[in-house]
Protein backbone atom coordinates (compact mmCIF):
# COMPACT_ATOMS: atom_id res chain seq x y z
CA UNK A 1 0.00 0.00 0.00
CA UNK A 2 1.36 3.38 -0.95
CA UNK A 3 1.02 6.74 0.82
CA UNK A 4 -2.05 7.55 -1.23
CA UNK A 5 -3.86 4.67 0.47
CA UNK A 6 -4.51 3.13 -2.94
CA UNK A 7 -2.94 0.02 -4.37
CA UNK A 8 -1.17 0.16 -7.69
CA UNK A 9 -4.04 -1.76 -9.25
CA UNK A 10 -6.58 0.79 -8.01
CA UNK A 11 -4.48 3.69 -9.22
CA UNK A 12 -4.22 2.25 -12.71
CA UNK A 13 -7.98 1.69 -12.80
CA UNK A 14 -8.65 5.31 -11.89
CA UNK A 15 -6.73 6.50 -14.90
CA UNK A 16 -8.75 4.06 -16.97
CA UNK A 17 -5.62 2.24 -18.12
CA UNK A 18 -4.86 4.97 -20.61
CA UNK A 19 -1.43 3.97 -21.89
CA UNK A 20 -0.11 7.50 -21.82
CA UNK A 21 -1.50 8.29 -18.37
CA UNK A 22 -0.17 5.00 -17.04
CA UNK A 23 3.24 5.66 -18.50
CA UNK A 24 3.33 9.04 -16.76
CA UNK A 25 2.14 7.47 -13.53
CA UNK A 26 4.80 4.75 -13.86
CA UNK A 27 7.45 7.43 -14.26
CA UNK A 28 6.14 9.31 -11.20
CA UNK A 29 6.14 6.13 -9.14
CA UNK A 30 9.63 5.20 -10.33
CA UNK A 31 10.90 8.58 -9.15
CA UNK A 32 9.73 7.72 -5.65
CA UNK A 33 11.69 4.45 -5.50
CA UNK A 34 14.91 4.53 -3.53
CA UNK A 35 17.53 1.80 -3.22
CA UNK A 36 19.58 1.30 -0.06
CA UNK A 37 21.57 -1.36 1.79
CA UNK A 38 19.43 -3.83 3.71
CA UNK A 39 19.34 -3.55 7.50
CA UNK A 40 18.26 -6.03 10.17
CA UNK A 41 14.97 -4.11 10.45
CA UNK A 42 14.11 -5.31 6.91
CA UNK A 43 14.06 -8.98 7.95
CA UNK A 44 10.27 -9.44 8.10
CA UNK A 45 9.64 -7.42 4.93
CA UNK A 46 12.19 -9.49 2.99
CA UNK A 47 10.73 -12.74 4.34
CA UNK A 48 7.28 -11.56 3.21
CA UNK A 49 8.51 -10.66 -0.28
CA UNK A 50 10.36 -13.97 -0.57
CA UNK A 51 7.22 -16.01 0.08
CA UNK A 52 5.51 -14.21 -2.82
CA UNK A 53 7.87 -15.96 -5.24
CA UNK A 54 8.36 -19.22 -3.38
CA UNK A 55 5.44 -20.01 -1.08
CA UNK A 56 7.62 -21.55 1.58
CA UNK A 57 9.02 -19.67 4.56
CA UNK A 58 12.73 -20.20 5.07
CA UNK A 59 13.59 -18.32 8.28
CA UNK A 60 16.80 -20.29 8.89
CA UNK A 61 18.03 -19.48 5.36
CA UNK A 62 17.24 -15.78 5.75
CA UNK A 63 18.84 -15.63 9.20
CA UNK A 64 22.03 -16.91 7.59
CA UNK A 65 21.76 -14.44 4.66
CA UNK A 66 21.16 -11.45 6.95
CA UNK A 67 24.01 -12.58 9.17
CA UNK A 68 26.40 -12.92 6.23
CA UNK A 69 25.48 -9.80 4.24
CA UNK A 70 24.06 -7.40 6.85
CA UNK A 71 25.43 -8.17 10.34
CA UNK A 72 28.95 -9.19 9.31
CA UNK A 73 28.89 -7.51 5.90
CA UNK A 74 31.10 -8.44 2.98
CA UNK A 75 33.17 -6.41 0.59
CA UNK A 76 32.29 -8.74 -2.27
CA UNK A 77 28.55 -9.07 -1.69
CA UNK A 78 25.59 -6.70 -1.70
CA UNK A 79 22.13 -6.98 -0.19
CA UNK A 80 19.92 -4.09 -1.33
CA UNK A 81 16.29 -3.23 -0.76
CA UNK A 82 13.99 -0.92 -2.72
CA UNK A 83 11.44 1.19 -0.93
CA UNK A 84 8.69 3.70 -1.56
CA UNK A 85 7.68 5.95 1.33
CA UNK A 86 9.65 3.81 3.80
CA UNK A 87 7.92 0.61 2.67
CA UNK A 88 10.17 -2.17 1.38
CA UNK A 89 8.85 -3.26 -2.01
CA UNK A 90 11.76 -5.32 -3.30
CA UNK A 91 15.20 -6.76 -2.64
CA UNK A 92 18.19 -8.05 -4.55
CA UNK A 93 21.31 -9.89 -3.42
CA UNK A 94 24.51 -10.56 -5.32
CA UNK A 95 28.03 -11.66 -4.51
CA UNK A 96 31.27 -12.23 -6.33
CA UNK A 97 32.11 -15.87 -6.94
CA UNK A 98 35.53 -16.65 -8.27
CA UNK A 99 36.82 -19.71 -10.08
CA UNK A 100 33.74 -21.84 -9.54
CA UNK A 101 33.72 -24.36 -12.39
CA UNK A 102 36.77 -22.60 -13.79
CA UNK A 103 34.94 -19.30 -14.25
CA UNK A 104 36.80 -16.06 -13.68
CA UNK A 105 35.29 -13.82 -10.95
CA UNK A 106 31.76 -12.80 -11.74
CA UNK A 107 28.77 -11.32 -9.91
CA UNK A 108 26.07 -13.82 -9.07
CA UNK A 109 22.61 -12.35 -8.58
CA UNK A 110 21.07 -15.09 -6.47
CA UNK A 111 17.95 -13.44 -5.08
CA UNK A 112 15.52 -10.91 -6.49
CA UNK A 113 11.94 -10.12 -5.60
CA UNK A 114 9.53 -7.26 -6.22
CA UNK A 115 6.17 -6.89 -4.50
CA UNK A 116 3.27 -7.67 -6.88
CA UNK A 117 1.80 -4.28 -5.90
CA UNK A 118 4.87 -2.48 -7.22
CA UNK A 119 5.56 -4.26 -10.50
CA UNK A 120 6.03 -2.60 -13.90
CA UNK A 121 7.33 0.65 -12.47
CA UNK A 122 10.98 -0.26 -12.90
CA UNK A 123 11.85 -1.44 -9.39
CA UNK A 124 13.70 -4.56 -10.55
CA UNK A 125 15.52 -2.54 -13.20
CA UNK A 126 16.67 0.05 -10.65
CA UNK A 127 17.86 -2.61 -8.20
CA UNK A 128 19.70 -4.59 -10.87
CA UNK A 129 21.36 -1.45 -12.21
CA UNK A 130 22.50 -0.40 -8.74
CA UNK A 131 23.88 -3.81 -7.84
CA UNK A 132 25.69 -4.02 -11.21
CA UNK A 133 27.27 -0.61 -10.55
CA UNK A 134 28.49 -1.79 -7.15
CA UNK A 135 29.85 -5.03 -8.59
CA UNK A 136 31.60 -3.07 -11.33
CA UNK A 137 33.25 -0.84 -8.74
CA UNK A 138 34.94 -3.88 -7.21
CA UNK A 139 36.20 -5.13 -10.56
CA UNK A 140 33.49 -7.45 -11.81
CA UNK A 141 32.71 -7.32 -15.54
CA UNK A 142 30.01 -9.99 -15.83
CA UNK A 143 26.86 -10.79 -13.91
CA UNK A 144 25.19 -14.16 -13.88
CA UNK A 145 22.02 -15.65 -12.49
CA UNK A 146 19.96 -18.82 -12.67
CA UNK A 147 16.19 -19.00 -13.18
CA UNK A 148 13.75 -21.89 -13.44
CA UNK A 149 12.87 -22.22 -17.13
CA UNK A 150 9.15 -22.15 -16.24
CA UNK A 151 9.50 -18.86 -14.36
CA UNK A 152 8.54 -16.71 -17.32
CA UNK A 153 8.18 -13.51 -15.31
CA UNK A 154 11.72 -13.52 -13.92
CA UNK A 155 13.29 -14.91 -17.08
CA UNK A 156 11.59 -12.22 -19.18
CA UNK A 157 12.78 -9.58 -16.75
CA UNK A 158 16.43 -10.63 -16.92
CA UNK A 159 16.27 -10.95 -20.70
CA UNK A 160 14.77 -7.45 -20.91
CA UNK A 161 17.82 -6.25 -18.99
CA UNK A 162 20.15 -7.75 -21.58
CA UNK A 163 21.06 -11.06 -19.92
CA UNK A 164 21.36 -14.00 -22.31
CA UNK A 165 22.03 -17.70 -21.98
CA UNK A 166 25.61 -17.91 -20.76
CA UNK A 167 28.54 -20.13 -21.62
CA UNK A 168 27.97 -22.46 -18.69
CA UNK A 169 25.28 -25.08 -18.93
CA UNK A 170 23.56 -26.20 -15.74
CA UNK A 171 23.32 -29.99 -15.52
CA UNK A 172 21.51 -32.07 -12.94
CA UNK A 173 20.16 -35.54 -12.21
CA UNK A 174 18.01 -37.16 -9.60
CA UNK A 175 20.01 -39.38 -7.25
CA UNK A 176 16.98 -40.82 -5.49
CA UNK A 177 17.51 -44.25 -7.00
CA UNK A 178 21.22 -44.67 -6.26
Amino acid at each position, binding site marked *: MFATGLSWYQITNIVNSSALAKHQLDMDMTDQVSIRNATLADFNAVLGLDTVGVPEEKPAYWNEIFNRYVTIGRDDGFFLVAEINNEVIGFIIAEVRAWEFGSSPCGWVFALSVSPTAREIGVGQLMLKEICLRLKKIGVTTVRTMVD*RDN*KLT*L*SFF*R*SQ*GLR*TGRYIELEKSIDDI
Partner: protein
Amino acid sequence: MKLHKASLFGLYAVLELASDPERQLSTIDIADKYGISTHHLAKVLRTLVRSGLVQAVRGVGGGYRFVGTPNRTTLLDVIELFEVLESELDAPIPSGQAGEAIIAELQSITQEIDELTKAVLDTTTLETALNSSRLRVKP
Protein backbone atom coordinates in the same frame (compact mmCIF):
# COMPACT_ATOMS: atom_id res chain seq x y z
CA MET B 1 16.82 -24.47 -35.55
CA LYS B 2 15.05 -23.67 -38.77
CA LEU B 3 11.87 -21.62 -38.66
CA HIS B 4 9.25 -21.90 -41.36
CA LYS B 5 9.33 -18.98 -43.77
CA ALA B 6 5.89 -17.87 -42.56
CA SER B 7 7.12 -17.66 -38.94
CA LEU B 8 10.18 -15.68 -39.96
CA PHE B 9 8.15 -13.28 -42.12
CA GLY B 10 5.66 -12.97 -39.26
CA LEU B 11 8.45 -11.97 -36.88
CA TYR B 12 9.82 -9.44 -39.39
CA ALA B 13 6.39 -7.89 -39.87
CA VAL B 14 5.39 -7.81 -36.20
CA LEU B 15 8.72 -6.39 -35.04
CA GLU B 16 8.79 -3.82 -37.82
CA LEU B 17 5.25 -2.67 -37.07
CA ALA B 18 5.69 -2.82 -33.28
CA SER B 19 8.81 -0.63 -33.51
CA ASP B 20 6.41 2.26 -34.15
CA PRO B 21 2.76 1.42 -33.40
CA GLU B 22 1.59 4.82 -34.70
CA ARG B 23 2.97 4.10 -38.16
CA GLN B 24 1.11 2.29 -40.93
CA LEU B 25 3.06 0.24 -43.43
CA SER B 26 1.97 -1.53 -46.57
CA THR B 27 2.88 -5.08 -47.49
CA ILE B 28 5.28 -3.69 -50.10
CA ASP B 29 6.97 -1.41 -47.54
CA ILE B 30 7.77 -4.38 -45.29
CA ALA B 31 8.61 -6.82 -48.10
CA ASP B 32 11.06 -4.34 -49.67
CA LYS B 33 12.78 -3.62 -46.37
CA TYR B 34 13.44 -7.31 -45.66
CA GLY B 35 13.85 -8.46 -49.25
CA ILE B 36 11.04 -11.00 -49.05
CA SER B 37 8.13 -12.09 -51.25
CA THR B 38 5.17 -9.68 -51.19
CA HIS B 39 2.78 -12.48 -52.02
CA HIS B 40 3.94 -14.67 -49.13
CA LEU B 41 4.04 -11.72 -46.72
CA ALA B 42 0.45 -10.77 -47.62
CA LYS B 43 -0.74 -14.20 -46.47
CA VAL B 44 1.31 -13.88 -43.28
CA LEU B 45 -0.18 -10.46 -42.55
CA ARG B 46 -3.71 -11.86 -42.88
CA THR B 47 -2.85 -14.39 -40.15
CA LEU B 48 -1.43 -11.62 -37.98
CA VAL B 49 -4.61 -9.58 -38.43
CA ARG B 50 -6.75 -12.58 -37.43
CA SER B 51 -4.59 -13.02 -34.30
CA GLY B 52 -5.32 -9.45 -33.21
CA LEU B 53 -1.67 -8.40 -33.14
CA VAL B 54 -1.98 -6.32 -36.30
CA GLN B 55 -4.78 -4.20 -37.68
CA ALA B 56 -5.48 -3.63 -41.35
CA VAL B 57 -6.22 0.01 -42.13
CA ARG B 58 -8.27 0.39 -45.30
CA GLY B 59 -8.45 3.27 -47.74
CA VAL B 60 -5.94 5.58 -49.32
CA GLY B 61 -2.70 5.51 -47.36
CA GLY B 62 -3.89 2.38 -45.63
CA GLY B 63 -1.73 -0.47 -44.55
CA TYR B 64 -1.04 -2.35 -41.36
CA ARG B 65 -0.25 -1.22 -37.85
CA PHE B 66 0.62 -3.00 -34.63
CA VAL B 67 -2.16 -3.12 -32.04
CA GLY B 68 -0.77 -5.75 -29.62
CA THR B 69 1.11 -5.30 -26.35
CA PRO B 70 4.87 -5.34 -27.02
CA ASN B 71 5.87 -6.20 -23.46
CA ARG B 72 3.31 -8.99 -23.22
CA THR B 73 3.83 -10.66 -26.59
CA THR B 74 6.74 -13.03 -26.98
CA LEU B 75 8.55 -14.25 -30.07
CA LEU B 76 7.07 -17.69 -29.40
CA ASP B 77 3.54 -16.21 -29.44
CA VAL B 78 4.18 -15.01 -32.99
CA ILE B 79 5.90 -18.20 -34.17
CA GLU B 80 3.10 -20.38 -32.84
CA LEU B 81 0.64 -18.59 -35.10
CA PHE B 82 2.39 -20.32 -37.98
CA GLU B 83 3.88 -23.56 -36.69
CA VAL B 84 4.23 -25.88 -33.75
CA LEU B 85 7.83 -25.84 -32.58
CA GLU B 86 8.79 -29.46 -32.29
CA SER B 87 11.75 -31.45 -33.41
CA GLU B 88 10.58 -34.31 -35.48
CA LEU B 89 12.74 -37.34 -35.05
CA ASP B 90 12.39 -38.88 -38.45
CA ALA B 91 12.91 -42.42 -37.24
CA PRO B 92 11.12 -45.53 -38.51
CA ILE B 93 8.90 -47.28 -36.02
CA PRO B 94 11.07 -50.17 -34.83
CA SER B 95 9.77 -53.60 -35.67
CA GLY B 96 11.55 -55.13 -32.70
CA GLN B 97 11.78 -53.89 -29.12
CA ALA B 98 15.56 -53.55 -29.31
CA GLY B 99 15.38 -50.22 -31.13
CA GLU B 100 12.81 -48.62 -28.88
CA ALA B 101 15.22 -47.59 -26.12
CA ILE B 102 17.58 -45.87 -28.55
CA ILE B 103 14.74 -44.02 -30.23
CA ALA B 104 13.29 -43.01 -26.85
CA GLU B 105 16.70 -41.69 -25.78
CA LEU B 106 17.12 -39.68 -28.98
CA GLN B 107 13.62 -38.28 -28.54
CA SER B 108 14.39 -37.23 -24.97
CA ILE B 109 17.51 -35.41 -26.22
CA THR B 110 15.62 -33.54 -28.93
CA GLN B 111 12.97 -32.71 -26.33
CA GLU B 112 15.69 -31.28 -24.05
CA ILE B 113 16.86 -29.03 -26.90
CA ASP B 114 13.29 -28.02 -27.76
CA GLU B 115 12.52 -27.04 -24.18
CA LEU B 116 15.55 -24.76 -24.08
CA THR B 117 14.62 -23.21 -27.43
CA LYS B 118 11.08 -22.58 -26.24
CA ALA B 119 12.28 -21.13 -22.92
CA VAL B 120 14.34 -18.52 -24.82
CA LEU B 121 11.63 -17.65 -27.36
CA ASP B 122 8.88 -17.61 -24.77
CA THR B 123 10.70 -15.15 -22.51
CA THR B 124 11.86 -12.74 -25.19
CA THR B 125 9.14 -10.16 -25.62
CA LEU B 126 8.79 -8.00 -28.72
CA GLU B 127 9.82 -5.03 -26.58
CA THR B 128 13.01 -6.78 -25.43
CA ALA B 129 13.87 -7.84 -28.99
CA LEU B 130 13.29 -4.31 -30.28
CA ASN B 131 15.34 -2.72 -27.48
CA SER B 132 18.22 -5.13 -28.17
CA SER B 133 18.03 -4.55 -31.92
CA ARG B 134 18.19 -0.76 -31.41
CA LEU B 135 21.46 -1.27 -29.52
CA ARG B 136 22.85 -2.98 -32.63
CA VAL B 137 22.27 0.07 -34.79
CA LYS B 138 25.52 2.00 -34.92
CA PRO B 139 25.13 5.77 -34.35
